[in-house]
């Protein structure tokens, strides 16, 4: 297999506690992030419509037009679809731009699809989430069609919590 996110931090952040390993029949959701096409053109358009000196400044595109430009190639769509079908995964949905596919499947199937992943439940005391403490791989035939798979990694960020009372300290200090 090929690691799509070899550099992803898989440590469990402070505040989260391990609860259990999921049973093989529990359902989880994975999001397959498909490789897009024409990204160089998208970038060119992005800067062109944002540049006040360009004649195309403000000439924006609709989501549907963007979809036509960057949607994954027919081959990518077919290979990913085939891969999912081969694992009897049918409960899937996509988006207008066709570059994300979300599927619900039993843990047993998810761990077959993503060798290396092992799904566990964690809690921060308020909510529970499912993540894998080990990196996932995908079959080498799939690697060139996917940017990454969302679901196994990244605990929700809580770093941007407001700093309550810091202002109070600063005001008192100023006085």
């Amino acid at each position: 297999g090929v690691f799509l996110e070899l550099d992803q931090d898989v440590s469990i952040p402070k505040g989260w506690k391990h609860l259990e390993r999921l049973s093989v029949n529990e359902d989880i959701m994975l999001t397959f992030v498909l490789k897009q096409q024409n990204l160089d053109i998208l970038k060119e358009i992005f800067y062109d419509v944002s540049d006040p000196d360009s004649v195309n400044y403000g000439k924006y595109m609709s989501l549907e037009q963007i979809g036509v430009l960057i949607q994954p190639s027919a081959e990518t769509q077919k290979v990913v679809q085939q891969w999912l079908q081969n694992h009897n995964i049918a409960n899937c949905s996509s988006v207008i731009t066709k570059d994300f596919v979300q599927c619900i499947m039993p843990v047993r199937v998810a761990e077959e699809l993503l060798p290396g992943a092992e799904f566990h439940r964690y809690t921060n005391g308020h909510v529970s989430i499912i993540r894998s403490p080990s990196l996932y791989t995908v079959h080498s035939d799939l690697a060139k069609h996917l940017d990454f798979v969302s679901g196994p990694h990244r605990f929700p960020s809580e770093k941007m919590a407001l700093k309550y009372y810091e202002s109070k300290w600063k005001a008192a200090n100023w006085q």
Partner: protein
Amino acid sequence: FHLGVTPSIVRKRYNLTASDVASFENSSQAVSQFLEQYFHPADLAEFMKLFGGGFEHRSQVDRIVGTQGSGKAGLEASLDVEYIMSTGANISTWIFSTPGRHESQEPFLEWMLLLNNMSSIPLVQSISYGDYEDSLSVAYMERISTEFMKAGVRGVTILFSSGDDGAGCKHVSKDVNVFSPQFPASSPYVTTVGGTSFKNPFKITYEVTDYISGGGFSNVFPMPDYQVQAVKSYLSTTKKLPPQTYYNISGRAYPDVAALSDNYWIVVNRVPMPWVSGTSASTPVFAGILALINDRRFTKGLPSLGFLNPRLYKLQQQKNDALFDVTEGCHLACIDDQVQGQGFCAAPAWDPVTGWGTPNYPGLLEALGN
């Protein structure tokens, strides 16, 4: 004299008069909430009743996209809505609420998917969310950045808060530290908002750096062309810079702009609360002002501002009074022998603590309204 930042204080500081409210029906703005951040409509109504005097405003949001959980309202969600609707007054406001419908879903990615499945979305999006770059895979950050590009091509202005840990700090090995940039603040395809405080916290004075204001240089994204000149000028004219081993001099530098981030009043769970601070506060304030400028552009038949940075950096190379330059104070960083807790410092023109500065609405409208 004042006891903290309220809508009237923000509006006065940024020179928004009572008539500076939206008039175009289709103007829109949005804030996004992730894990465990709920908003109560009653809090917004009470906030506007208490603090919304002196300018025409709305007291309810128009649309909640996603699922709002039950339970207590969060500080973050309350603040975002209350302040984007104070500067972006009388503008239709949406809340994207994506706590993760399934336990295995990433709330931030769920938000991206929502944007990718809606043909029409608010044209200014304020998001207070971030992670350290080094905790994320490059594949993830690059793809998310491509999604921001997609939004920009649609004419959407995306603003991210710059973070609340100054330059950040990562311990690499014994006696070796480096600064730790945050993503998506470090994406070259979004506008990043830093934070400031009043020089005198009890008066509407000029602004200085809020030492928590996130800023620095990305280790993942190279510096985009639009900011090369500004950053080069900062690096070559600033006398005291942290040692170069602490940051990637050729990376995308942030923030781009700033606004007050200190000592806010909000209403949460029906209780007025003072002393709330963070760049999560400055971001919706700046977003509301841009939504108001969009409103003025729409009345003239002009398109939305879209991705702001190329225009912003070009604008600042000319003489204008669109932004108040913040030139005092430094933000925090590693507490070690070499930098002793100090990261970058504010300076005339662009700097990696407060960007180009804070908004002066009449000047900004004149610069961006045509």
